[in-house]
């Protein structure tokens, strides 16, 4: 039999029993503090998770490469191999090469208004050989005497002519013809050259009264990138919320948690941590993208990103938190990780459908305007409209308010599902039962 004693004795490591002084007073933690402790744990676990670190680095690399690589490939002027047949063609080809090297679009002079190209001329014995070389791909184009117009020249390509070539060759041919005519008319070589330069310099400069605010393709690409960022962040971090809920159910730790902490604090902590992580990762990706764009000299991309990012982040946070609690509810009705495939189907639909709608409806119009006010598509469609200059700031505010109101309702639904099911560890709970439990 045990030796029961009613005399409390001080014991190291225990303090708050009645009659013994507490080692360190245990305060009553407030709800906010509890949420903070839960958030901190979720953050630490995720930030130490090798898979998470690895996937973040991988994403960063993809963004960096996709920004820097095209710029690197684009750098420098296109090389064009141009075959010539006969003396006149050889002279014109040489002149075109000289103009291509001079040209940079705007500089006044002989090559004004022309696009640059590195033309490598090469003489071939006859037109047959030149055509064969074009067909074989050993040259990109050939300049041959024109059979239809005696004394004229023909530029021969295979399926298409290299972009800047025809204007350069045309300018060179005109220059060459004019030059010889001027000299034949009595001008000396220097005067003829000056006249030619003056003629080229008289090419009218181009001005648009209403130039587009930015490159339409660029803003489309960027809004696509934003949509994808939202889609992937919502999906990955939403899944991570659901997993973390199931893991607590599966490991049964939830019973200890619920005995100590209000269920709402648990839910709020998880959502807060994953929102911070999702936003953090997105900002990091955006920053790498901007630094990349700055480094490769795409200043227009940079300024467009800077101008559009604010609203994107606002809608990102609103849209993400609207869905985050629902992800937790999907976790709560599952009892094992494998169940998540089935229980997250509604969430996948809530993400996929708006994503594809926003991607396909990218042209300004009634449909896009409607989508920008529907709660689940608004986080995608409204930033798009703002970026193309189709929506005013007050429209964005209204749309944001709609998302906030929806989010409040969704949080209510999700909290009920979470609270009523987080302790049910015996198998997957059907939705109807989960709601009525």
């Amino acid at each position, binding site marked *: *039999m*045990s030796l*029961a*004693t*009613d*005399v*409390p*004795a*001080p*014991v*190291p*490591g*225990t*303090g*708050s*029993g*009645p*009659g*013994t002084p*507490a*080692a*360190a007073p*245990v*305060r*009553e*933690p407030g709800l906010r*503090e*509890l949420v903070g*402790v*839960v958030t901190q*744990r979720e953050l*630490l*676990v995720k930030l130490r998770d090798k898979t998470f670190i690895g996937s973040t680095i991988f994403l960063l690399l993809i963004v960096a490469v996709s920004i820097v690589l095209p710029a690197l490939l684009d750098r420098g002027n296109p090389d064009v191999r141009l075959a010539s047949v006969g003396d006149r063609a050889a002279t014109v080809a040489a002149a075109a090469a000289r103009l291509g090297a001079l040209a940079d679009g705007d500089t006044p002079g002989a090559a004004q208004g022309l696009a640059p190209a590195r033309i490598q001329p090469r003489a071939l014995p006859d037109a047959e050989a030149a055509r064969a070389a074009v067909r074989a791909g050993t040259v990109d184009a050939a300049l041959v005497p024109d059979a239809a117009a005696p004394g004229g020249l023909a530029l021969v390509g295979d399926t298409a002519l290299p972009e800047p070539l025809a204007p350069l060759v045309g300018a060179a041919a005109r220059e060459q013809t004019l030059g010889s005519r001027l000299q034949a008319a009595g001008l000396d070589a220097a005067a003829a050259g000056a006249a030619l330069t003056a003629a080229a310099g008289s090419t009218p400069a181009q001005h648009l009264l209403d130039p587009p605010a930015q490159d339409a393709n660029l803003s489309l690409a960027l809004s696509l990138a934003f949509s994808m960022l939202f889609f992937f962040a919502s999906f990955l971090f939403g899944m991570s919320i659901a997993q973390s809920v199931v*893991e*607590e159910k599966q*490991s*049964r*730790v*939830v*019973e*200890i*948690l*619920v*005995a*100590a*902490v*209000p269920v709402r604090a648990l839910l709020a902590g998880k959502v807060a941590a994953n929102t911070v992580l999702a936003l953090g990762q997105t900002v990091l990706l955006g920053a790498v993208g901007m630094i990349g764009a700055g480094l490769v000299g795409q200043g227009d991309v940079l300024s467009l990103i800077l101008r559009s990012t604010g609203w994107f982040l606002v809608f990102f946070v609103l849209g993400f938190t609207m869905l985050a609690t629902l992800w937790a509810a999907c976790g709560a009705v599952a009892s094992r990780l494998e169940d998540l495939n089935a229980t997250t189907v509604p969430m996948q639909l809530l993400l996929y459908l708006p994503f594809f709608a926003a991607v396909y409806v990218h042209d300004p119009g009634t449909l896009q305007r409607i989508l920008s006010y529907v709660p689940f598509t608004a986080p995608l469609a409204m930033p798009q409209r703002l970026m193309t200059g189709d929506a005013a700031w007050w429209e964005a505010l209204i749309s944001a308010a709609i998302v906030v109101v929806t989010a409040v309702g969704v949080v209510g639904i999700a909290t009920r599902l979470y609270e009523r099911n987080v*302790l049910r*560890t015996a198998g997957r709970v059907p939705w109807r039962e989960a709601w009525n439990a």
Partner: protein
Amino acid sequence: MLELIDVRRSFGEFRALDDVSFVVRPGRLTGFIGANGAGKTTTKRIILGVLAADSGHVRWRGADVTASDRRRFGYMPEERGLYPKMSVVDQLVFFARLHGVGARDARRRAEELLAELGLGDRAGDKLEKLSLGNAQRAQVAASLIHDPELLVLDEPFSGLDPMAVDVMGAMLRRRAAAGVPVLFSSHQLDLVESLCDDVVLIHAGRIVATGEARDLRRTHRPDRYRIQLGGDAGWLRDRSDLQVLDVEGPSALVELRPGADDQALLAAALERGPVHAFSPVVPTLAEIFREVAR
């Protein structure tokens, strides 16, 4: 003191707890015994507020228990579980902080507690790397990390080797000695018997016996005697005031019928020759348990 008064709980048609009442006194270890499905886990969940009672009261120190009272309770649930991928010390700190212990205190306490439980050198290991016994100790540590004012433990001894059982037993006793009421369930009834001051016996959702373990054994004693005679004990079979449960040569185990006089039996035995032993048999908890659970 923790009091349960007429606590009822049903799941659909099934009444899991029917007017459950008992007390857990400070400074004492109370064993909670009952067959699987008798209602032990439901009772504990209701004490901890994880589950609500349909009716009845749970009272702590004389008043209905509140959420903030419960935050100072320590709980080790039936189905074990901590975070598999977190280090032992990190999760203890986490649980301490959920109970309102400051971050620095939490770490210090976690380290002290792990040392006390002989787990000090595994503090940094992830839980999934621990052996079953060590994981069990970590689980107990999680329920003790905030110096709880009441301890409720489900099967704290299961899965422990005999040495770990001693460590655990001593630790629970120290908590009880410090004035903490301790309620724990166990199927190892010999352990309950050697460790507990009080016993609560539950069967099919009803409390069938409660009180000091010693009294319980005495009051639940059928009138049984072990008798050792000088000669053959076979004559005992002929007496109508008793039933012979076992006889082998000079020794016998008999149960007196209600109202029978043990002194008359002893006198009769002495008439026939020497009596070497005539001792009442106190049943073990296991025997009481089997009897009420029948």
